[in-house]
């Protein structure tokens, strides 16, 4: 009776909770509960959500936020991740516009929390939040921390961020009593704040013995820029540290800059000019640059004289700096001065000024630049060409053309580059006009311009140059034709090809022939003329005509080339085979395969296989077809090189079968290097386009290949992908690679442990843990055992599970994996025990030996995959089945079946051991809990299926049957829909389901009792995604998707035959689907159907606000259980409930 009352109370609380949001009733949760409830929702998935959560916390007032702060823990002593997320959310939220009051509340709460928190790192975290949100209210409380060794730094940073006069005062006041280390921090900050008031107080520290203190003081004085500091800054170079001497001019100039900023420009100028004069050493050339920059910055145009005179300075860096600064003084007068300056300086400097004038955008400099174009000095001319082009634009094109009239390659090249910066319409007519009269080198450049610009209308000009007197011009013209020739030039080009003997020119002519032929619209006519010519041609010239065919293609051409591969002339035959190997489309594949499988010439085989592999992988064939073709060649390949080439090609066939084919080569020395690379290429996801391959087999193959790949980046990529596969398959890591968290030492055995009292066990466990830490260690991501202590046990107990573990032993090594605290899946040295590892060694009745010995050699890693469900164990060693569904016997109590639950142990047998990559996936047992958990009852869930019969359900009650606590649909009996009698609008639905291979069903929601629920209601897919038949579905058709509307994330279904857990939340327009703990759909159906749905179909059902829930049969065997529901926001029900109390 008492208990009942309690339940009712919980229920009331839960109901009130649920209703308060909609009804505005008082929230009766305790403050702590409210805080915890909100914290549980962090981190938020988006800004709106984050701000909503932050505002919930703000509404809890100072006390609530104080409660949040109290939950911070020192790093390493617990997990306060959500708390830190929450506080950071607040720090951001209270800074939005118009929230000053909230900011104040929050800041003051942080300050209060600072008083009560003890740990320095926690305090540092709180101060870092104040660095974001604090204002004047925080200044005084922060002052206290300026005395603290650890917290002076963060407090100072916060004060620096606050940056008010009060913050400055706080620093000034704390300064005297501060320790020397803290003083350094504070002086640096005062310097950054440019605190005039600090000058007097800090000056004495320029002569401190503490080098750091001296440095920051000098910096601070320089940055504050008070004239009182000048003498000190002027004489830093007298200081003893060489670092200080090196830094001296920079600090002195920083001071000068500050002087200028405060209006003391003449003093600044004096310092700068002095430094320019005094620093002449090449090691210090940056100092005059810096001084000149600050000078120009300070006095602007009045520094023009300094800029000009810098051009006489031998220091090239200073000259470059002056040139860069020239832009600060604009106008024609300045231009004239620069031009005048040119007469007074060396040639190199003149060139520098010319370049500057070109980019200074004053056209008054044009005459000077035009003149420079004709200078006797090449360095001047080279500078003038681009400068003139930049300043004069297309107006100076004629002058630029004249600078081509030379035999100087660099000038011609510079001019050519400049000409290319004009659009064709401006530059091409000029090019054509002057081509004839130019010297040969310039002609080459001009032809290249015509070609690059695809100036086809001038093809005749270029044709004419084929007969030039100069070889270089002839070559340029021939090369240019590739870009310029049209289809009507083909006969001419073929003629040139036939007449040419020089090998370079032949290749150029061939390129032109190909380009021109490919312009013919009808593909079959492209090779017509070439083939006709071929018929009339004899001897070696036939080779020259054959080659271009590979870049054109076509049926007739292919027949001709194939015929030529059978000719008797070996030279022509070679050319024909290699032409065929370069063929542009799959049509040549068959013949290449013929050649490959019949020819005796090794060279031809290699050509043929390279061509064949390329054509197959580039083709549009389905992956299975590509694979079949490549496998066929692999079977007949004889040479290592050939096989490796095929293996390489298989990398682009990304299927499981392809992976299997390649994996077979991982064990062979000749092929393993290539096979390993290919395996990774097949299995790993391609950026942006494709998901990788999944499954235990893939993991095993990838693990093998990791060891064979040399590139450490690639190794890491593969390892990372293996963990991705495991995590997506529901595996969690049992070993973090860093420490032994999640593990404990061994105490006795299940029987002796059961006899101990809790106290005894705790004590024994503490001792065992101590001993464990001595002998088991995490070293570089590997779990290492020194061979001297006891076994290592998981903290958790397991019922049904699948686990993966890599292990390694030394010679005579012996170990094993205990399942549910019982021995064991055996691990040992096969040299001593030839049956090998992996067997259930302690079985007396059933098999105790592995099916095969498949251990890797001692000293190498082996991988065990163990699956235990009920009493049976299945194990794979190195991906080979070694224990096939064998009942594991109870070693401790022989007459009993194996314990239903227990820890996993890594057995110590007095030899050193190594483990890594330990992953486990818990399997939901076949007979799960039927009914509601206490929490669910409290939250208001109800059973939708009573576990016995179909009460409350309607529709196809023959196809669906209730048996063993499940609803099962047998397709032989029917394949209709089973609906709830009741209608539901907003709800949380939880259920478990088990698929059979290729199974298809659906969850209908908000559906009417008739019509196709996918359209007249909504259908959430229930589907075996892995079935081959479904491989080409649309994304919105896979499991969990709202059919036709919203695609679900894939990869989170448990293997077929295991139970899956699903939760569907329908709240207004938002639908969320959780599958096995992962959110696979979270979407707004309005947004997803605007303007149209993904499948483009009409879904009137989306508009329905309520309807029946049901399972939609599609002719497959599927099982459901544990179906429960909680309705959301159903006000009347709540009222009735309260009323009834």
């Amino acid at each position, binding site marked *: 009776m008492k208990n009942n009352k309690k339940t009712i109370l919980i229920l009331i609380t839960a109901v009130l909770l649920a209703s308060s949001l909609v009804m505005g009733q008082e929230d009766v949760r305790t403050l702590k509960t409210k805080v915890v409830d909100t914290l549980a929702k962090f*981190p*938020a998935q988006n*800004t709106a*959500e*984050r701000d909503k959560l932050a505002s919930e916390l703000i509404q809890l007032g100072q006390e609530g936020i104080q409660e949040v702060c109290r939950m911070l823990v020192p*790093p*390493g002593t617990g997990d306060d*991740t959500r708390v*830190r997320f929450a*506080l*950071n*959310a607040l*720090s*951001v939220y209270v*800074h*939005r516009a118009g929230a000053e009051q909230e900011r104040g509340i929050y800041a003051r709460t942080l300050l209060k929390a600072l008083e009560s928190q003890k740990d320095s*790192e926690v305090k*540092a975290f709180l101060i*870092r*939040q104040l*660095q974001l*949100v604090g204002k004047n209210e925080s200044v005084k409380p922060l002052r206290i921390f300026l005395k603290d060794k650890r917290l002076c*730094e963060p407090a100072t*940073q916060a004060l*620096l*961020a606050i940056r008010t006069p009060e913050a400055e005062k706080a620093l000034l006041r704390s300064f005297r009593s501060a320790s020397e280390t803290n003083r*350094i921090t504070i002086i640096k*900050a005062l310097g*950054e704040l440019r605190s005039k008031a600090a000058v007097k107080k800090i000056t004495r520290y320029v002569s401190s013995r503490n080098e*750091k203190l001296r440095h*920051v003081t000098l*910096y601070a004085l320089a940055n504050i820029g008070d004239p009182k500091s000048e003498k000190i800054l002027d004489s830093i*170079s*007298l200081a*003893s540290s*060489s*670092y200080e001497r*090196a830094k001296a*001019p920079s600090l002195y100039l920083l001071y000068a800059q500050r002087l200028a900023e405060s209006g003391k420009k003449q003093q600044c100028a004096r310092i700068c000019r002095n*430094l320019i004069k*005094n620093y002449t050493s*090449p*090691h210090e050339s940056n100092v005059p*640059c*810096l001084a000149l*920059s600050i000078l120009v910055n300070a006095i602007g145009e009045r520094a023009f004289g300094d800029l000009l005179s810098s051009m006489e300075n*031998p220091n*090239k*860096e200073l000259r*470059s700096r002056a040139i*860069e600064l020239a832009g600060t003084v604009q106008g024609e007068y300045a231009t004239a001065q620069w031009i005048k300056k040119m007469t007074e300086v060396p040639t190199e400097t003149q060139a520098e000024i010319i370049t500057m004038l070109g980019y200074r955008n004053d056209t008054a400099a044009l005459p000077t630049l035009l003149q420079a174009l004709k200078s006797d000095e090449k360095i001047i001319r080279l500078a003038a060409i681009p400068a003139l082009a930049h300043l004069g634009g297309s107006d100076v094109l004629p002058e630029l053309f004249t600078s081509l009239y030379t035999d100087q390659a660099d000038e011609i090249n510079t001019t050519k580059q400049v000409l*290319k*910066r*004009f659009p*064709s319409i401006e530059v091409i007519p000029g090019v054509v006009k002057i081509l004839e009269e130019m010297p040969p080198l310039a002609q080459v450049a001009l032809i290249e311009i015509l070609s690059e*610009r695809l100036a086809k209308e001038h093809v005749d000009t270029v044709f004419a140059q084929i007969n030039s007197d100069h070889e270089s011009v002839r070559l340029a013209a021939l090369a240019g034709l590739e870009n310029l020739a049209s289809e009507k030039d083909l006969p001419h080009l073929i003629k040139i090809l036939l007449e040419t003997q020089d090998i370079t020119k032949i290749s150029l002519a061939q390129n032109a022939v190909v380009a021109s032929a490919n312009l013919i619209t009808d593909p079959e006519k492209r090779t017509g003329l070439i083939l006709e010519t071929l018929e009339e041609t004899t001897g070696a010239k036939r080779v020259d005509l054959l080659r271009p065919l590979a870049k054109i293609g076509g049926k007739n051409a292919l027949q001709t080339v194939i015929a030529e591969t059978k000719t008797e002339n070996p030279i022509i035959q070679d050319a024909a085979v290699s032409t065929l190997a370069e063929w542009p489309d799959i049509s040549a594949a068959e013949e290449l395969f013929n050649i490959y499988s019949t020819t005796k010439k090794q060279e031809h085989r290699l050509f043929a296989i390279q061509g064949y592999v390329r054509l197959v992988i580039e083709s549009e064939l389905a992956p299975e077809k590509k694979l079949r073709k490549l496998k066929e060649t692999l079977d007949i390949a004889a040479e290592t090189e050939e096989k490796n080439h095929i293996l390489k090609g298989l990398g682009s066939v990304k299927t499981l079968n392809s992976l299997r084919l390649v994996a077979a080569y991982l064990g062979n020395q000749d092929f393993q290097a290539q096979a390993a690379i290919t395996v990774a290429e097949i299995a790993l996801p391609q*950026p*942006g386009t494709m998901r990788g391959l999944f499954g235990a087999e893939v993991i095993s193959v990838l693990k093998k290949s990791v060891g064979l790949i040399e590139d450490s980046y690639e190794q890491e990529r593969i390892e*990372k992908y293996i963990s991705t596969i495991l995590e997506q398959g529901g595996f969690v890591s049992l070993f973090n690679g*860093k420490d032994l968290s999640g593990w404990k030492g061994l105490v006795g055995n299940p029987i002796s442990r059961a006899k101990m009292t809790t106290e005894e066990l705790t004590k024994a466990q503490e001792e065992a843990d101590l001993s464990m830490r001595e002998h088991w260690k995490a070293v570089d991501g590997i779990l290492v055992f020194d061979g001297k202590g006891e076994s290592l046990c998981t903290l958790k107990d397991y019922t049904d599970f699948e686990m993966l573990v890599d292990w390694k032993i030394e010679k005579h090594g012996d170990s094993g994996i205990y399942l549910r605290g019982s021995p064991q899946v055996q691990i040992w040295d096969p040299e001593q025990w030839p049956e090998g590892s992996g067997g259930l060694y302690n079985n007396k009745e059933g098999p105790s030996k592995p099916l095969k010995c498949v251990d890797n050699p001692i000293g190498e890693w082996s991988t065990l995959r163990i699956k235990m469900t009920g009493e049976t164990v299945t194990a794979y060693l190195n991906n080979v089945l070694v224990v096939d569904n064998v009942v594991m016997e109870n070693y401790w109590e022989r007459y009993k079946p194996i314990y239903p639950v227990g820890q996993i142990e890594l057995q110590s047998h007095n030899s050193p051991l190594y483990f890594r990559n330990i992953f486990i996936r818990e399997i939901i047992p076949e007979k799960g809990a039927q009914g509601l958990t206490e929490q669910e009852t409290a939250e208001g869930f109800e059973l939708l299926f009573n576990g016995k019969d179909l009460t409350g359900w309607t529709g196809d009650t023959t196809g669906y049957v209730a048996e063993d606590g499940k609803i099962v649909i047998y397709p032989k009996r029917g394949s209709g829909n089973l609906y709830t009698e009741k209608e539901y609008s907003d709800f949380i639905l939880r259920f478990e389901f088990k698929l059979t291979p290729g199974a298809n069903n659906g969850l209908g929601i908000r559906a009417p009792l008739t019509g196709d629920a996918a359209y007249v209601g909504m259908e959430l897919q229930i589907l075996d995604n892995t079935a081959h038949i479904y491989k080409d579905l649309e994304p919105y058709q896979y499991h969990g998707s709202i059919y036709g509307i919203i695609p679900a994330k894939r990869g989170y279904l448990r293997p077929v035959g295991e139970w899956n857990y699903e939760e569907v939340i329908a709240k207004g327009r938002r639908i969320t689907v959780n599958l096995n703990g992962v959110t696979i759909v979270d979407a707004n159906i309005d947004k997803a159907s605007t303007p149209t749905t993904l499948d483009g179909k009409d879904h009137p059902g989306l508009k329905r606000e309520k309807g029946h829930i049901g399972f939609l049969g599609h002719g497959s065997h599927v099982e459901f259980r544990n179906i429960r529901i909680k309705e959301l926001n159903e006000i009347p029900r709540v009222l009735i409930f309260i009323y009834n109390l």
Partner: protein
Amino acid sequence: MTRKKPITRRDFIKHTISATAALTIVPRYILGGAGYTAPSDQLTKAVIGVGSMGRGHLHYPGAKLLAVCDVDENHLNMAQKIAGPGVAAYKDFREVLERSDIDIVHIPTPPHWHALIAVAAAEAGKDIWCEKPMTRTIGEGQKIVEAVQKNGRIFRLNTWFRFRGQFYGFGTTVKPIKKLVQSGVLGWPLKITVSGITGFDWKFYWSGETNIKPEPVPKELDYDFWLGPAPYKPYNKHRVHGTFRGYWDYDGGGLGDMGMHYLDPVQYILDKDDTSPVEIEADCPQQHPDACGSWRRIQLKYADGCEIILDGENKDKDAAFIEGPDGKLFKGLESDIPNLKEKLATLPEPEPQVTDFIKAVRTRKKFALNEENGHRSCTIVNLSKIAVRLGRPLRFDPDKQRFINDVEANRLIAQPMRAPWHL
């Protein structure tokens, strides 16, 4: 400025050594003169930060390695072994900068050190080769620009896609894209989408770990020095070598790693080298105060309406890399504009860039990707980081380089450094 110094015996020896060095080792070009380059005219360099990235830098051609520097003894030992005899090893970079015989300083440290070392190097008269991302904050970038320019130094930011090599998954170089955009064929303003669909993948595996436990500092590492200007937080292996990218204190996750590679060419293509976006908005899960996380989408808008979309989810399957009112440009230079190839050929070439760092150093010409445009490109990364961390729309003034009406965002522009470090 007073230039007398009391000369101690130690200084005297030092002085004599460097004076001798000036005669034999210091490059002739520094002394000026008409284009003189002797065969012995060898540039020299030091590499500061010799973790895995830094060790890859030891043998870049063009300059002779004289010194390596790291706060991790293991790194230093490994680097010295690779570098061979005659290369000095330092723990404190300031000692490297004091050496007058070193011309170029490479900075492949984690990003929280870039600004400090680059500014100090500029003030010591060194030319600089800095790894991406250029800086951790916008404020640090401004300081680099100022120090490098005022001291007349040559600065190279080391990501090269704006001027050479294939532009990641795009399938061509940047040059034809630049030509096309510059000519106005696509119209204006433009929208650029950086996503896996358009050829660029964001590396979200650079995430930090939350709730990390303090661990003992390995004896080979000077952790306090490694942290340098960054806030003190207890040591954990994941904070440092190899995985530092996952923490806001040192970098910015996948954005920090790939952002500059992807976005620097975008700034160049859009001709925005002297400005920055004015509106920034991010769609992302809430970020942890310490550890960088992932994001879904970041939108950056320029004053003229041009827009950059960083699509972290590859959501927009039909996205063009560039979309303008008159045409689109997809991966591999595919376009909806007819005869694009022919059109491209008639267009003028972009202004030339100095793409040889050694040549830039010798001729004192600005390198193609320098302190100024590098800072602007890095500003996109840093703006995005702030938008992700604050999760609210931001408005930015590209001239003042401050956020408009957002005190908190402005506090993230230039975060205070831990003493005694300062810029």
